[in-house]
Each structure stands twice: as structure tokens, then as C-alpha cells.
């Protein structure tokens, strides 16, 4: 059972209040982009064994989207943060580095 804290309304609740929305920080490619980029954007997942960044929605609460940094091997949650960003904030990255030295995820580390 995952326990997440919604950064939008501050409520801490178990996962049944939330709905997972898949990989976060995906860069969009639309009309005019190459087939490769469009394919990568639509289909290729990072699916890491370890540090992962995801979108979640506080579905049975305030209804808002946010981001979570999680470990897919231990289910530990490193932290949650606003979705109004293209990159995880420094304090979240620091928290992860303290626990998983040498981690990387797509172009972040």
C-alpha cells in the first residue's frame, strides 16, 4: 500500500485516494516532429528498476495532478511535488541522491 502526500492540498492518504498517471516529465512531440521523436514520445517508456518519476492525480480528493518520485524496487516514496515544472526540484533530487547515490533517470541525475 502506497502512502502519498498531495502537494496541492497537503492531504496524506493511501493509494486508493489517488490514481496513477504514468511516467512524468515526458517531452511532447507533435506535428512537424520526426517519426522517431513522435514514436519515442508516444510509446517508449523508461520503466526503470529503481528511481522513477510519475504523474499522479488526487482523484478522490482535490482532483489535481502532481508528481511523485518513487523507487519501484522498494516502493519507497522520496517525495511529491507540483506538476507545474519540467524537471524535479533540487530538494527532491538531493533526497534521492542521499538514498540512491549515482542514480539517473532519462536526462536527470
Amino acid at each position: 500500500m502506497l502512502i502519498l502526500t498531495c502537494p496541492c492540498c497537503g492531504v496524506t492518504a493511501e493509494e486508493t485516494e489517488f490514481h496513477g498517471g504514468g511516467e512524468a516529465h515526458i517531452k511532447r512531440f507533435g506535428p512537424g516532429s520526426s517519426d522517431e521523436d513522435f514514436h519515442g514520445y508516444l510509446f517508449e517508456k523508461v520503466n526503470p528498476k529503481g528511481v522513477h518519476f510519475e504523474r499522479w492525480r488526487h482523484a478522490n480528493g482535490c482532483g489535481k495532478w502532481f508528481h511523485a518520485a518513487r523507487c519501484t524496487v522498494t516502493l519507497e516514496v522520496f517525495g511529491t511535488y507540483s506538476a507545474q515544472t519540467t524537471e524535479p526540484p533540487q530538494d527532491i533530487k538531493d533526497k534521492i541522491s542521499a538514498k540512491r547515490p549515482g542514480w539517473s533517470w532519462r536526462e536527470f541525475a
Partner: protein
Amino acid sequence: MKRYSAFAVAREALRYHMGWDRAWASPEPKKKYDVIIVGAGGHGLATAYYLGKNFGITNVAVLEKGWLGGGNTGRNTTIIRSNYLQDSSAAIYEKARGLYETLSQDLNYNIMYSPRGVMMLAQTQHEVRGYERTAHANALQGVATEFISPNRVKELVPIINIDGPRYPVLGALWQPRGGTARHDAVAWGYARACSAMGMDIIQKCEVTGISREGSKVTGVTTNRGDIACDKLGIVVAGHSGHLADMAGFRLPIESVALQALVSEPIKPCMDVVVMANTVHGYMSQSDKGEMVIGGGADGYNNYTQRGSFHHVEETVRALVETFPMISRLKMLRQWGGIVDMTGDRSPILSKTPVEGVFINCGWGTGGFKSIPGSGWGFAELMAKGHSPLTAEFNLDRFKEGRFIDESVAAGVAH
């Protein structure tokens, strides 16, 4: 390999069962193989078996990080059916189901195939239309299924409640030759036959890296040393993304937990497999009398082989409404496996961007039923570079927008 037979059982009974051989050998890895298969689940072992049997390629190693059959092959609810909507799916699943019919004889190992019939309940108008369509498609594909009435459902499954208040049973898609088999035995039977052909099954051997020269694979790094190969087959289910990372390409796959549970054993009460996809639960009765139960997958990426409790609760809630008599049953065990989900809920059997590396994955929540057919086709692909059974399931189908969409067709995929 000494053959198993009634005579052998009698002979061993007379000498205190001291004469049984080990079913497969545990060799040290060699320096080099023609083919290395990563993952000794059903699909990896079946691939090795058909490489040897159909193509005479026996300088093969199957590398397994844990114990053979310890992945999803030993964790599933063993439903076998081939009533899929799309032609390419029906072809590979029906090939597999057909091979299951005589697999015990072919392997000289009792895999306990039990074609007891699989029933998929239609509990909404949408599902009725969907399954009628599938039954028509199956007729054209040569897969024997039919759409049956609620009364026939009740006849076949007396313990079912067909007029539940919320989701009454409106009919069902019925495949009389679908059923179950003993999952461990499928892995063990293939392993024994591979070992008898001189292949090396190496357990506790984790692949940690994939080496290449230019764009071509040269071998793997493992916790038991480097091993060279000409061709590499990656058949690791939930860990496919992880292995693809090592080889340097990405997959359209996410790994999530899928759970199952069994009840205490009770007297025989249901001799078919029932799946209720709208309410998300399915159930069959094992030979030991346990009710074997499964439901939907968890909702986020996970590598822990443990799922969330509320999914168990959802499944059980749905089944208690469908089968009121199970409400007092105690559950004995619950477990999870990591399943590899693709967007169109169809597998990937394909060459990859790395020359000599082939991948067989994406079977997700429903690949036990396909083990023999998948091994058959994937062995052909690895040996000859092309197989009619696997052609449509290549990696490029996503880029080309050629999905084999079974998610609309099944709802739940087991």
C-alpha cells in the same frame, strides 16, 4: 534421460524409489554458446526446446537469475484459451493450445492439461456485442467457441448467480477446449527435455550486462562470468525493460504487479474456468480443491512481486457477488508477479535494434496459455530470421501504427 512410464513407477516402487535420475543437469557455464536465452520461464525454455527439436540447434544455454519457473510461469492462474479477436493473436494462441493438447506425450512429462472449458461472462450489453463479434471472428479463424445463453451458463456452473442485481449474466463466450494445466510442470517438462538434448540450464545466473561489437551482440556479463554467444534471446517478462536498457534500446512496456490468491480446499463444486471481466475477477478450482482466484493488475510501475491489498479486496468482492457460496471461504495464500504490459495488450516477438538480439516479451497478464506457441514461433524467428507466427508481433508495429488491439477485445487479458 530415462523415460517416465507406468513401468518405471512400478520398477522404482520395488526399489524404494532410489533409481530416479535428476530431471535436469546443473552444469557450469561454458565460455561460448551458439544461442543464449535469458530467462528460464516457460517462454524461454520452450524457445530453447523448439530450437533443438525443430532446428537442431542444441549448443544453447538458458540463464536464469533465480530458479527455473520461479517468475510468472510459477505464479499464474494457469488459464489456457485462444478466443482472441485479432487474427494474428488467434493464430499464435491456438497454435499454443493445440500443442498443449499433446504436450505431456511430447515431453514425456505430465503437465496435467485439463481442457475443462473456459467461460467469459457477458454482463453488459457492450460485452454481449463484443463477445458475439469474437465468436464470429473465431469461427472464421477456426477456433471453436460459441456464444451461450444465461441458462446454459447456469447449467455448466450451478454455483453461479446469474441474476445479480447490478451485473446480471447476459450470456457468455464459451471455449469448450480451453482449460488449465500445471504451470510448474510446463517449465519442468521443457527443462528436462532441453537438458536431455544437451542444453545447459544455468540457475542463479543473473545477466548484468550485454556486450556488443559495433551494432552486433557478442555475449553477456553475468554474476558467474562473461559468456559469449552468436545470438541472444531476451525472455524475461517483467524485467524486459531492464534488459533492454542493458542492450541500449527502449521498449513500449511498463512493469506492474498482478496478484492471485487461493482458498482453502473444498469439495469439487465448479469444473470449468469462469472469467468475469466487467467486475474484474476470475476463478477455477484446482485438482486439490482450492479455488484459484485472480483479478486485475495494479495501477503503477512495480518490481516487488507484491501488490496492493485493495486489488485483492476488489476481486473478492466481485466474485462473492457472482458466486455467493464462496463468501465464507478462507483464503490460504496470496502472491504477486511482475507483468510486462504493452499498450495494445499484445506481445512483442521481434528482432531488435541490436543485431543478434531478439526479444520475446509483453505477454503481460496472459502469457501462460501461449508458452508452446510462443516458443515455437520465437525459435523459428531466432533460427531463420522470420516466422509467420510472430511476424505481426514485431517491435515496429508501434511506430507503424499497426496495433494488435486486444485490450478492447478482452478487458481483462488472462
